[in-house]
């Protein structure tokens, strides 16, 4: 075992000089002044180092992995990709999704007549996206879901549809993991089955 128990070192007891007011102030000010000047010079050179941003004029730069609110993918023909299979509805731990399926005359015969997400319940866990067998519901980078009345937190299908090109970064991100592990060739599969 490579872990060891080590007693931490305590700084020596306080001496009288340590409690002298001016010294204390200077020492503390040195730290804060360092931060101040570092931020100031960085600002003057155009590279801000302070952590706060000026929301809403500035937006945070999200990672591509960022999970915002779930939205529905809208295909080029304006229709949703969702076929109302109901897996997301079941996978959702907080039951915030409600789907009423219906039949259409299209080639894929089923579509969600009603697709509601109660954003006041949604906890952005992403299980809907993971469960979806059609890549039809994905976590977008939208986070502004505040409303002034509770009805506003119920998002209907028309509010949830987002054109597929706007979701490109997210789709690229989740597609990374699609072929985990690499799709085996038929020969590899045969070998695996033989081993079982």
């Amino acid at each position, binding site marked *: 075992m490579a872990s060891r128990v080590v007693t931490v070192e305590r700084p020596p007891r306080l001496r009288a000089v340590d409690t002298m007011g001016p010294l204390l102030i200077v020492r503390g000010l040195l730290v804060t002044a360092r931060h101040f000047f570092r931020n100031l010079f960085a600002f003057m050179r155009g590279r801000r180092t302070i952590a706060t941003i000026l929301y809403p004029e500035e937006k945070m730069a999200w990672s591509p992995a960022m999970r915002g609110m779930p939205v529905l993918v809208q295909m080029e023909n304006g229709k949703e990709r969702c*076929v*109302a*299979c*109901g*897996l997301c*509805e*079941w996978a959702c731990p907080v039951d915030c999704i409600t789907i009423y*399926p*219906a*039949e259409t005359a299209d080639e*894929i*015969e*089923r579509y969600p007549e009603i697709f509601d997400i109660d954003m006041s319940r949604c906890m952005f866990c992403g299980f809907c996206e993971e469960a979806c*067998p*059609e890549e039809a519901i994905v976590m977008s980078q939208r986070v502004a879901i505040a409303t002034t009345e509770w009805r506003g937190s119920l998002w209907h299908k028309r509010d949830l549809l987002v054109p597929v090109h706007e979701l490109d970064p997210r789709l690229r991100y989740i597609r990374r993991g699609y072929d985990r592990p690499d799709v*085996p060739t*038929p020969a590899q*599969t*045969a070998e*695996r*089955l033989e081993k079982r």
Partner: protein
Amino acid sequence: MAKITVDGTVIEVPDGSMLLPALLDHGVQVPHYCFHPKLSIDGSCRMCLVKVEGMPKLTISCNTPVRDGMVVDSRGPEVAKARQGVLELLLVNHPLDCPICDQAGECYLQDYAFEYGTREARTQEPRRKLLKRVDIGPRVVLDQERCILCRRCVRFCREISETAELAVFNMGDRSVIDTFPGEALTNDYSICTADICPVGALLSKDFHHKMRVWFIDEMESICPSCANGCNIKIGTARREIQRLLPRRNDAVNETWMCDYGRLRYGFVNDDRVRVPTVGRGTPAITATWDDALDEAARRLGALARTDGRALAAIVSPHLTNEELFVYGQLVAGGLRTAQRDAAIPLGPADDYLIKAEKAANGRGARDLGLAARSGELDLAAIRAGVETGTIRGLLVTGTDVWELWGERADIFERLETLVVVAANAHPLLGFADVVLPGLTFAEKNGTFTNHAGRVQRIRRALDPGEQPSDGDIFLALGRRLGMEIPPGPFEPAAVLREIVASVPAYRDVTWDAVGGLGVPTIEA
């Protein structure tokens, strides 16, 4: 009895039976598609392959008779590999339809592929293209791509409904199920083909794209639509009935039910009366339960006090035995009249499951003495009494009397007092002085007695919330009419004990025993 060894354990099975049902009866899981206990043996799916010692190859257990001393291996590596092979072949051409297929979740292809399959697809070739959404009948839709050609539906139409509309056409990998040219799947049991279809090839149009099965809660109950009393499962979700499915009971309905009964559940979901109303005229005035019950008791009580012959009661055969029993007490003790009869709707019948009495509990009403016996006023005589004016008040449960009396408004307008206990909006309610909302079969516990005298349980599948049951209404009316009824709610189990004590034919019935497949009453 023959003794056979299965996976190392010895079991006893009846001589002459086939291996697969024997194994299934002993809880040995053997996957199978084409085998169905109520249909002839087909042997087409090759899913139930087992290894029998002494036989050169694996054999299908559904068509192998048991033999004393047989040694069977139902899950060894050889069997598992054969199953994987069968499943892989079945899935090679199966469309990627799970997301849009109603069967997903109760699909045997999914179940077996998950449990016994290879888990990994290795085909790259395009899938076979066949017809989808074939409209083969008024109540069933066919998807040929999903079909695995087990021919259960074909055998069902030949052997059970004896109409033989379906057949397999073409050969080899072009085989498809279809109806004979010019025919449609129109028999009265057609949705049963969707039930027995192990995949999503045949689907009920009523349930098509309606609800995913994994959201459905099922509750065992009895079909309310005719006197046969088919055993069913009520599937509910989102506080509504989504579908009715037959449940196996060899003494009543094998595993089938008719389309009429299966599709007749909309009255539970729609057009319900939820609040009591008082006064004729539209719209009637909604009232609180207490006010409505007071008003009903006042009106009925006034007539009961002056002249018992001025009152009559019409019994609904949709009530449970327990409700009928307290209703009978109310009529005799509270209304103090002997003028009552059951209003039983009639309809077409066949020689199999469909019975002419289109209500579940007409037999129960007769057994409990609530149908008119000879010498008493029957339904026609009550009608005559109303028309001549001798009968001035009616307590009606159910609304069937409206149709039975020819939908004649003038009869009901004549009445001084009409109190109706009904679950659904109906023209009859327009003539009622007091309407008391009732509950449907899906919202209450109790028992029905079918045409052959079998007492069977219905169970609450939907929660009616605060709404009182019909039994509570009768008890409340009885209390207001001066009957001595101890306080407390209507308890079906306790009432059934009273029935058992007072009706000789029911002496073997207990609440627990009736819970499974029902208990036959004893013929006098």
